[in-house]
């Protein structure tokens, strides 16, 4: 229980500095969970991340897997609330302010101006995630890169469900690595 409270306190702090999203503070989470408290080792930290990737939901739910390791189901819920609560209240405050300012020209410019920054960062996270995934493929990095590129093309060029590619990727991984 003290472990869970310590995890929640650490995550709540990260919540309001996690500009750019949950994965932006993955390094700080590693420091908190592996280096500072020794709740898990490097390998299980990396596997927790892959497990969260394989589950549907926002990427931030990786903190739920960390919470599960520390304190079971209650830990999963507590860690998610700690990571999402503070930032969520802030976003709600912002959304309220935004509603009052509807139509303000400067707000429209600010919103438009954030688009290139956001899209650059999303692209970078995608590439960094692809790089992280390479490590799980052992001596077949080219297959992993090909799968990432093929999925990108599929999503860009079609309106079909990306689930086909995710499922196909899982099958490919089982055939080549399983």
């Amino acid at each position, binding site marked *: 229980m003290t472990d869970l409270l310590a995890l929640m306190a650490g995550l709540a702090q990260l919540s*309001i500095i*996690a*500009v*750019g*999203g*949950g994965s932006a503070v993955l390094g700080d989470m590693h420091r908190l969970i592996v280096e500072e408290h020794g709740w898990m080792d490097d390998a299980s930290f990396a596997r927790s991340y892959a*497990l969260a990737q*394989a*589950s549907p*939901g*926002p*990427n*931030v739910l990786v903190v*739920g897997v960390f919470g*599960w390791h520390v304190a079971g189901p209650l830990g*999963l819920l507590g860690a998610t609330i700690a*990571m999402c609560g503070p*930032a*969520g209240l*802030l*976003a709600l405050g*912002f*959304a*309220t302010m*935004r*509603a009052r300012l509807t139509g303000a020209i400067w707000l429209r*410019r*600010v*919103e438009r*101006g*954030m*688009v*290139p*920054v*956001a*899209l*650059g*960062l*999303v*692209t*970078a996270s995608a*590439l960094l995630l*692809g790089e992280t995934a390479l490590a*799980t493929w052992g001596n077949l990095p080219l297959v992993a*890169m090909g*799968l*990432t*590129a093929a*999925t*990108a*093309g599929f*999503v*860009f060029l079609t309106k079909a*469900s*990306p*689930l086909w590619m995710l499922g196909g990727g*899982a099958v490919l*991984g089982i055939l*080549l690595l*399983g």
Partner: protein
Amino acid sequence: MRPSAKHLFTAYFQVGVSSFGGANAWARRMLVEKRGWLTDREFAERLGLGQVLPGPNAMNTAIIVGHGFCGVRGAAAAVAGLFAGPLFILSMLCLLYDRFGHLGVVRGALAGVASAAAGMMLGTAFKLVRGARPSAPMVVIGLTALGLALWRLPLPWIILGLAPLGILAAYLEARR
């Protein structure tokens, strides 16, 4: 058409349970392609705000989208919908992983999903760029953000440095 809080909950619940590999790609697919509540450009703007605010992007975007349509109730409905399914599914996965995580089949499947999920994010980013119709200065700012992030510069610095330039570019674009 303007969705109600109930519509928002249902749409975001579907986003939640299908959003393998991160929710933004699936939220875009639902809100822009399937429901038509937002254009690509409107979605990119809300996603941009969700990115600039601290905390999980997908949740921030859901709060902004939900609030835009139905106020606080809409925001709460969108967030509840987004998280309800995944929290349950993730609990089940954690249970299974504790028991079967050592198997090669499981590790192979996880590797495949991880690589495909990265590609899915990449393809979605390309789609959003296409829909945003960026001016030349905006393209330069976007590529700079990409380069600096790949170079592992801390994200708050990238945002603080590039946000003013992005806003400037938006003003220039509007004057043309």
